């Protein structure tokens, strides 16, 4: 008998035992108690005249003040008649006080702005060690440069990423597509509404202005499509629109929403996947020469397995079966299923949504999607947040409804997922019309909290009630040759016979940003045997014997880690070279 095989088999048994336990995590919505009180505004609450009023907004977790506690930026929309309201709605920045509460610092941070906010993504675009924030709008985008003193300066116009008035920018992500050490910026666009909605027919007036026999706001089908944008970081605080040159415009028009950057073919170059609504989703394959080609159809990521268009909303990457390839989850419209695109490792994907048990809830309209290991058993779980377009839907008496529950799927470790929402606390199952969703370790204790932007409500902040049951490790990367955040770096964690991978990622989900730190559950294993970081620069760091239940920081090329808890160097030189 080979010892290696025995150990792996034993580890599998341990994992299997973990999986068979009842779902251990109950979530409580602490938003109100924590002070996340601002109400989302997205046009009229009851009557939606335009599709713009229905799509809602995302949110972003980022540590804006560098205190080690992740803060929250909640994107907000506005009304069709902002002048008619006494107070203009703005997006809100909430500072994490570290005691379970947040303080609204919107005004003092300089991010108080009213408009049709859509999405947000974080990234240190000037490599100054401070997280910057990009916010997309219907209208001109905002690039908030972090001043390092708790304030931001809005520089989108100066930096060349504001775009034009009337553009409907949606998902975004910082991505170092040319691996030059500076993050560039990808911005998806949804619909060309035209000036003053001139391209939009009135509700109920056409084929694409009906839903199940009731008149609703028109679109996206039937409306003009809008192009996506790629901005190259010039390294001097400005960007250049390289969309044409880079092949971003070579695809036909799409109604683009969620953006996911990931290296699907493991070639070390970041690719970009864009979830599109009622059209082929796009997989921008990085050709390693500054250009991209759309391999959506060839790879199987453009449509469902049959070639049927889907209404893609949110996206997430995860290696759900530990085969070393990043798979993709995409949320879709109601009367459809999400996708679980299994990465076949040969440049193609197969939709295994039904095999995996994710295809049964077809009356849910999915938006945000989070892939993280909530119970820290070493298998990445999924959370999909749902909600229909408009309250009018309820008058159709259909099986779908405007307010819907979130669905928490537990990864069973055998290629299948189980809906454990009912076991995750009543507040997880509470009905909302949810849009953007993101996750972060707010208290730095391995419990992944969930923030959700709820349409016409204050956000939800679902926090695990009890301490993390299994072991875990959080990893923050600091690039030196690579971009400072390590965005695009591939991290592999080996522990207890399991090999997990993930990448540092800007953007994702539905127009949202999760914690830039990576989170890995370790199950019952009391240490991570190896952590390997493949940086965008090509540098590889390998660290061994990492104790669990802490956040660590890995500086590029250091072959060591710093414990986030004690901030002491506890790592050793990689044994890989020995």
């Amino acid at each position, binding site marked *: 008998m080979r010892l290696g095989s025995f150990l792996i088999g034993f580890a599998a048994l341990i994992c299997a035992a973990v999986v068979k336990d009842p779902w251990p995590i109950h979530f409580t919505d602490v938003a109100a108690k924590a002070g996340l009180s601002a109400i989302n505004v997205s046009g009229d609450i009851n009557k939606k005249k335009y599709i713009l009023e229905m799509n809602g907004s995302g949110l972003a977790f980022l540590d804006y003040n560098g205190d080690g506690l992740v803060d929250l930026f909640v994107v907000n929309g506005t009304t069709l008649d902002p002048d008619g309201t006494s107070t203009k709605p703005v997006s809100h920045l909430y500072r994490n006080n570290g005691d379970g509460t947040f303080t609204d610092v919107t005004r003092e941070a300089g991010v108080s702005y009213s408009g049709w906010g859509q999405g947000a993504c974080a990234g240190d675009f000037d490599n100054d060690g401070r997280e910057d924030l990009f916010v997309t709008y219907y209208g001109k985008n905002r690039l908030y440069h972090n001043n390092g003193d708790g304030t931001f300066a809005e520089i989108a116009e100066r930096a060349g990423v504001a775009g034009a008035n009337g553009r409907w920018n949606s998902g975004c992500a910082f991505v170092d597509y040319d691996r030059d050490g500076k993050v560039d910026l990808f911005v998806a666009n949804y619909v060309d509404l035209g000036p003053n909605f001139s391209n939009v027919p009135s509700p109920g007036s056409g084929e694409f202005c009906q839903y*199940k026999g009731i008149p609703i706001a028109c679109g996206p089908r039937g409306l003009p499509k809008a192009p996506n944008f790629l901005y190259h970081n010039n390294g001097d605080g400005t960007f250049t629109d390289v969309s044409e040159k880079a092949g971003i415009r070579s695809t036909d028009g799409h109604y683009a929403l969620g953006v996911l950057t990931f290296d699907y073919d493991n070639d070390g170059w970041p690719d970009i996947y864009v979830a599109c609504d009622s059209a082929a989703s796009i997989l921008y394959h990085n050709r390693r020469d500054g250009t991209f080609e759309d391999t959506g*159809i060839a790879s199987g990521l453009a449509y469902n397995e049959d070639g049927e268009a889907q209404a893609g909303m949110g996206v997430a990457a995860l290696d759900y079966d530990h085969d070393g390839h990043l798979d993709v989850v995409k949320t879709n419209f109601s009367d459809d299923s999400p996708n679980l695109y299994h990465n076949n490792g040969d440049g193609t994907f197969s939709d295994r949504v039904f095999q995996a048990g994710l295809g049964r809830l*077809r009356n849910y309209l999915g938006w945000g999607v989070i892939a993280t290991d909530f119970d820290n058993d070493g298998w990445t779980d999924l959370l999909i947040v749902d909600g229909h377009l408009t309250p009018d839907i309820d008058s159709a008496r259909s099986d779908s409804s405007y307010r819907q529950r979130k669905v928490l799927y537990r990864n069973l470790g055998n290629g299948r997922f189980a809906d454990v929402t009912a076991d995750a606390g009543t507040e997880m199952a509470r009905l909302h019309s949810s849009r953007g969703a993101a996750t972060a370790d707010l208290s730095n204790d391995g419990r992944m909290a969930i923030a959700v932007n709820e349409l016409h409500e204050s956000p939800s902040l679902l926090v695990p009630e009890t301490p993390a049951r299994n072991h875990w490790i959080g990893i923050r990367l600091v690039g030196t040759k690579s971009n400072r955040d390590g965005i695009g770096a591939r991290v592999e964690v080996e522990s207890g016979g399991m090999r997990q991978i993930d990448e540092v990622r800007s953007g994702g989900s539905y127009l949202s940003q999760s914690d830039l730190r990576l989170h890995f559950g370790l199950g019952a294993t009391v240490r991570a045997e190896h952590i390997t970081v493949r940086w965008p620069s090509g540098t590889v760091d390998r660290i061994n014997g990492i104790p669990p239940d802490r956040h660590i920081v890995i500086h590029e090329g250091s072959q060591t880690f710093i414990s986030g808890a004690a901030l002491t160097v506890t790592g050793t030189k990689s044994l890989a070279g020995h």
Partner: protein
Amino acid sequence: MRRRNLLLVIIVALRCSAQSSHQDQDYLFSVLPLIDRGDLSAAERQLLQGTKQFPGSGILYNALGIVYRKEGKIDRAAGSFRKALELLPSFTAAQLQLASLDQQQGNKREAAELYRAAANGTTNFEALVAAGLGLADCEDYSGAAGVLSKAKVQKPDSSAVTYNLALAQFKAGDSPAAFITLRDTGSPEPDVLYLRGRIMESLGDRQGANQIAAACRLQPASETFCSDAAVAAMRQDKFVDALDLVEPALQKSPASVALLSVAALAQFRLGRYGEAIHSYRAALDYAPNLDAAREGLGFLCYMTGDLETARTVVEAGLQHSSPDFYLSYLDALILYRLAPQWRVQAAAALERAIHANSRFAPAYFLRGKILMEQNNPAAALMDFERAAQIDPKYPLPYFKMAQIYSRQGRTTEAESARRRFAELGSLREEEMLARQAQDILMPAQP
């Protein structure tokens, strides 16, 4: 056809028998009370005696034929009518009687010839109406329309003739003429509204649905009016209206399988899957062998992700002697989605579906997918090509063809297939399936 004021054949016989003598007519009058009383044996005896007394009397043989017919002595009746026609070749009443008998016995061609002959030889209104209706029953709608037009000239105000003429014209495919015939009929009667609605629909006039709906509202107990009204509304994507029509009708006829099936279809299209499943289940309770309801139920369970129930429902239907091909196809769809281990069974179900209906493109598409998974791209390509050939507007085969070509490095062919796929446009699964199911489950366009 609607039979109003249908002629009394005996009377026509008398009116049309100009060549008869007064004696045999008097004889016939003496027998009529017996027929009226229902004393058929005595009438038969009397008429037999009469034919001996007046062997050249066509009207007596005709009357004897009528009595035989009433007695159920069909062969003798036919013989008597033929004898009458031998004696009086243009004897309209006998022609109509014999035609009616032929028609009853399934000899529509012979019957139609007799009806035509009768119509050609008479100007009598009732005879023309009878011949017109007879021709319609023999499915000679053009002939019926011609004959009924002649009747209408005689009595332009006859609502029955107008209705039947319009119906004959409509069935003959002459909807414009049918529309003109019915145009001036202000009758609010449900069947007139219904017919006008059907005619307008066939002319592409969306207002036709309103006429059918009005017929349904006036007569909610009519399964036909209300199920057709709901179908017409659904064709215009007015699913709420469809349900509003069919629900009151269902209160009057809760066991109507037609209404339940149409209600289920409307509920399905409105996303009220739970209600639709309930309706289909009820329809199946009343008519367990009804494939359409079973297909609807199985399809909905499949659509809503309840694959195990879908499989149970569909496979129960497959136990029947000659199930519809779509049940086998559904079985394959369900098995395919259920788990990879059911691929062999799914393929077998597809073989059955294709055997039963070799012109259903989605079956080839699904078989192609299975073959593709089994790493048999050549066979898969053949199936996709066949699917595309059967239904040139079906985009999905081109998607798969593009994938195969692309993986084989056949870039030109891949690009061509991709372009064709893009030209045809891809719908969402819900829409694709809904259209497919609607095609299968909804009654055909009039």
